[in-house]
Structures are given as structure tokens and as C-alpha cells.
């Protein structure tokens, strides 16, 4: 055995140190793993850790398999199924706009139809790991838009499985349209079978896996995962899907928690090797030739993400801040883009696809955290009408459920039926409003004295409600929006 242990060790160590350096500046890790591969790969003039990157293949492939297995394992099925129709529409809009724009770009580049589908996926599917880390680091977990962002990226993960099921047959090089359709049929049929196993067969799989000893659980589980991934690849569905689906199956067994604990360190190390190996396959000489397309792609991605953010904000009644945060947090691209790039390399597509995706991921890796952290500047220039042009109809249909000040509601009922200040002045009023923070009753903005608004300006208590019989709406001064209780919240 003449394994290049020195090269492997150096690669992983450099990758880890580079990523650690990047984390200090709040940058995501995945692009740095890839960067280590590029720097120490055979195409740069500098030191070369691996003369033959293909020696890394089996480790890298294992990394891909555990990465997707873990993704399936921790996929929050219940939380996704329990989320409302609105979230699906928002996620659908996000995916549709991004994949659509990616397809447009892919075909416009003229590298070929297969290449276009790979590029569409690579620029269209965001990195859930990057977005989640950003939310934690930017201290936005308590924000109103955060559940929406997380919901979107989780649904994107699921979309990845469907996209891979579509892409593998396309890349496999079918000779006719009929053959292609047949292969797509097989691909989705296989996906359905694995869904069936996840739904009804998990108990039996659990019986095979469950022993008292963690050592044996780990070995049997990994064996099963790799086997299923291999079989999937063999029948023309990608190994990635097989791994993802078996993750969904194991997630429904009794060993789920132990499986997660075992899978995490494996995933961390071997997925890093996967990203490094991808880096070593990149020819630096090609990067110059893809720079312009990449810059265009980055601009398109920013625009499509902000648009999707605006659509989401309208659906959920978020304010400007929410819209900007949704658009700019989901900007990071990482693991999924690199998986697609690897698929492209494996299928022998245009050589420029790999460098294109590598550079694209690197640029967004730096750009995404910066833009997300400065989303407030975008929020300032989003005009009201983009979010609230339905205000006129709002009496009939209150739209917003995402006011961030609902927690300041302390009191909702009162016996008061006059505006005290108006009574003292001897004035009259048109309608009455009630402050939901302190309970003060005052006259509305159609009245002469506008005491309710004056009360807000004094006290900064954000929410009022109408005391008019049958009105039932609340208004938030801070968010300038009509609000009702968030769907699914329980205040009892």
C-alpha cells in the first residue's frame, strides 16, 4: 500500500486552518475547504499535496454520501408538513425565480443544455447550512421573518432531492426523448419507492439497525447507507438521492438520535474531504475565462433573491426589514452547488462548469454574510407600495401577521367608551381607539384631536385596536401595518 498520507493530512489540515481563519471573519467554511483543494491541487504553481486527485475519489464520495445522509436524517418532516400553504407558495416562488433565472443564464451562456440544468441548480439552490449559521450569528433567531427563512431553506432541501432525480437522467446521456422520459420515470419511481420505505418500512429497518452497542449501530448503519447509495447510482439515480432518502428512513426509526450523534463527526470530516477533492479538480487556468459569466450570475442571484424576499414579505405581511432579511439571508451558496458541479464533472460536461461554480460559490461566500449583515440599508430603500399596496382593501382583509410588536400587547378589553382628553376639552370624536399596551382609550385620526396617535407619539406604545363594534382590527404604528394574531400562535 502506497497511500499518500502526508498529502491527505496536509490537505485536511490546511483546509481546517483556512476555514478557521475564515470563521474569524464570519465567513462560511465550505468555500475554504474548496479553496484549500484549489491551492494545493495540481493546477496551481505552488506546492502540490496530491499529484493524482482521483486518489481522493472514494473518500470524497463517502463524504458526499454521509453529507446527504445526515441532511435526510435531520430533515424536520413534521415541521414542514405542519407549516401552512403560504410557506409552500413562498418557497415555490423562491425556487421558481432562482431556478428560472439560472436556466435562463445557463442557456444564454451557450455551453449546452445539460450544462444549463447544472448551472440552474447550482445558482438556484441555496446553502441551508450557511443561512442557518448566519441567522444564529447575526442574532436574528427571535425575528419575525426567521421562521419563514428557515421554512424556505428546508423546503429547498427537499427540492434538491427532486432536482437531482430530474438531473441524473438528463446527465446520463439518453439517446432519444423516449429513453430520457423512461429514465426520468425510473428515477422518480425509485424516489417514490424510497418514500414508501420511509413511510411504512422504517420499523423493519429500525429492527435491523437497533442494537445496544453504538459501535455496531454505527457500522451497520454506514454499511446500509453506502449500499443504498451505491445501488441508487447503479440504477441511474444519483448516489446523493439514495443517501438522502435512506437518511429520511433512518430518521423515522428508534435509533434516530444515536444515528445523528454518530453521523455528525463522520459528516464533518468526510464532507470536508469532498469539498477539498472538488477543489483539487479545479483548473485555475480556466477561472479567468469564466470571470465575466460568474459576475453576471452573482448579480442575477442578488436580484432574484431580493425579489423572492419581497414576494415572501408580501405573503407574510412582513415589513421592509423582514423583506430585506429574507432576500439577503438566503443568498449563500455552498454544498449543494458543489454537489451539482461534481455531477457535471462526472458526466463529462463542459470543463468550464466546475470553475464557474467554484468561483461563484467563493464570491457569494464573502458577499452573502456582508450583505445579510447590512440588510438594513436595503430595507430603507424598499418603497411602501411594494409591500403594502393592498392597504386600501385592508378593512376587509387584514394582511399582516408578522408585526414584531405583538409581545407588547398587555390588555385587549376595556369598559371605557369615551376619549377622556376630548371630554376635558369639551370636544367630540368620530371613532375610538384603544392602546393595547396600557389600555388608554382615545380618539381616531378622523377626529379633530387625533388623541390616539398623540398617545403613541408620547408613549411609543406601538399597537392600537379599534373599539368600533365589529371592526376587529389592530394597527401597529412602528411597522405601519394592520395586524392580526400570528397564525398558529396560542395566547392561552
Amino acid at each position, binding site marked *: 500500500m502506497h497511500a499518500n498520507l502526508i498529502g491527505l493530512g496536509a490537505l485536511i489540515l490546511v483546509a481546517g486552518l483556512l476555514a478557521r481563519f475564515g470563521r474569524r471573519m464570519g465567513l462560511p467554511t465550505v468555500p475554504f475547504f474548496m479553496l484549500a483543494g484549489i491551492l494545493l491541487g495540481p493546477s496551481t504553481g505552488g506546492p502540490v499535496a496530491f499529484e493524482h486527485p482521483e486518489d481522493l475519489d472514494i473518500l470524497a464520495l463517502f463524504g458526499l454520501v454521509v453529507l446527504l445522509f445526515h441532511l435526510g436524517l435531520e430533515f424536520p418532516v413534521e*415541521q414542514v408538513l405542519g407549516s401552512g400553504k403560504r410557506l409552500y407558495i413562498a418557497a415555490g416562488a423562491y425556487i421558481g425565480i432562482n431556478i428560472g433565472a439560472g436556466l435562463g443564464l445557463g442557456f444564454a451562456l451557450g455551453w449546452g443544455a445539460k450544462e444549463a440544468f447544472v448551472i440552474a441548480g447550482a445558482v438556484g439552490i441555496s446553502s441551508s447550512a450557511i443561512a442557518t449559521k448566519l441567522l444564529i450569528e447575526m442574532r436574528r433567531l427571535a425575528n419575525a421573518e426567521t421562521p419563514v427563512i428557515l421554512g424556505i431553506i428546508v423546503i429547498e432541501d427537499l427540492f434538491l432531492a427532486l432536482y437531482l432525480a430530474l438531473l441524473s437522467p438528463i446527465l446520463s446521456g439518453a439517446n432519444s426523448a423516449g429513453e430520457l422520459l423512461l429514465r426520468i420515470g425510473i428515477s422518480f419511481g425509485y424516489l417514490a419507492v424510497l418514500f414508501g420505505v420511509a413511510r411504512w418500512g422504517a420499523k423493519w429497518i429500525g429492527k435491523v439497525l437497533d442494537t445496544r452497542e453504538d459501535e455496531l449501530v454505527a457500522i451497520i448503519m454506514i454499511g446500509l447507507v453506502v449500499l443504498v447509495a451505491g445501488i441508487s447510482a447503479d440504477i441511474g439515480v444519483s448516489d446523493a438521492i439514495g443517501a438522502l432518502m435512506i437518511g429520511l428512513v433512518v430518521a423515522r426509526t428508534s435509533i434516530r438520535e444515536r444515528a445523528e450523534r454518530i453521523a455528525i463527526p463522520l459528516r464533518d470530516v468526510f464532507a470536508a474531504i469532498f469539498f477539498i477533492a472538488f477543489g483539487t479538480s479545479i483548473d485555475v487556468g480556466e477561472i479567468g475565462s469564466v470571470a465575466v459569466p460568474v459576475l453576471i450570475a452573482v448579480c442575477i442571484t442578488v436580484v432574484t433573491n431580493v425579489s423572492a424576499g419581497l414576494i415572501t414579505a408580501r405573503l407574510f405581511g412582513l415589513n421592509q426589514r423582514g423583506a430585506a432579511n429574507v432576500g439577503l439571508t438566503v443568498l449563500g451558496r455552498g454544498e449543494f452547488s458543489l454537489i451539482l458541479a461534481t455531477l457535471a464533472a462526472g458526466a463529462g460536461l463542459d470543463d468550464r462548469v466546475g470553475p464557474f461554480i467554484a468561483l461563484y460559490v467563493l464570491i457569494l461566500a464573502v458577499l452573502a454574510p456582508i450583505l445579510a449583515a447590512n440588510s438594513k440599508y436595503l430595507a430603507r430603500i424598499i418603497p411602501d407600495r411594494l409591500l403594502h399596496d393592498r392597504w386600501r382593501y385592508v378593512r376587509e382583509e387584514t394582511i399582516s401577521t408578522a408585526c414584531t410588536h405583538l409581545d407588547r400587547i398587555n390588555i385587549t378589553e376595556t369598559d371605557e367608551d369615551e376619549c377622556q382628553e376630548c371630554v376635558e376639552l369639551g370636544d367630540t370624536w368620530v371613532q375610538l381607539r384603544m392602546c393595547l399596551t396600557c389600555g388608554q382609550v382615545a380618539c381616531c385620526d378622523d377626529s379633530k384631536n387625533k388623541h390616539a396617535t398623540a398617545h403613541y407619539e408620547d408613549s411609543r406604545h406601538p399597537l392600537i385596536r379599534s373599539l368600533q363594534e365589529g371592526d376587529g382590527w389592530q394597527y401597529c404604528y412602528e411597522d405601519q401595518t394592520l395586524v392580526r394574531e400570528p397564525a398558529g400562535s396560542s395566547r392561552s
Partner: protein
Amino acid sequence: MGKGVRIQELPGLGTRYDVDLHSGSDRVSIVVGRDGKRHLYVFTQAGDEPAAVIELTEDQARKVGAVLSGTFFTD
């Protein structure tokens, strides 16, 4: 759940509990992560940005929780 506590699922991350403190506009949000980590957000009247954010491991959270719930300790 008790009065004034709102529950919000954060898909893939965990569950958020928003606790109303009934003193002006102070509130506390606690995110219990699937990985066991607790993220504690404290908001005060000052605005939308949290006044303090603390990340606790499961162990630390248990300790702080015990003290908060009035468990009696001696040296």
C-alpha cells in the same frame, strides 16, 4: 403553555418560546435547538435589536434554569 408564552417552530433549528414579561415592552425569547443548545434573547424597550444574546449548552441551561426556578443551593 402558560399565559403570555408564545411557541414558534423554527424548522430545522428547534422551537422558540417568546415570554412576555409584562413590564412595559421587555420580553425574553428562548430558542431550544435540536442540538440541545439554548439561545437566550433579551429585548428591552430600546428597540427591535436584542439587548443581550446568550448561547447556553444543555448543561449550562439546566444550571441557570434550576437557579431561576428557585432551587436551593448551598456551597
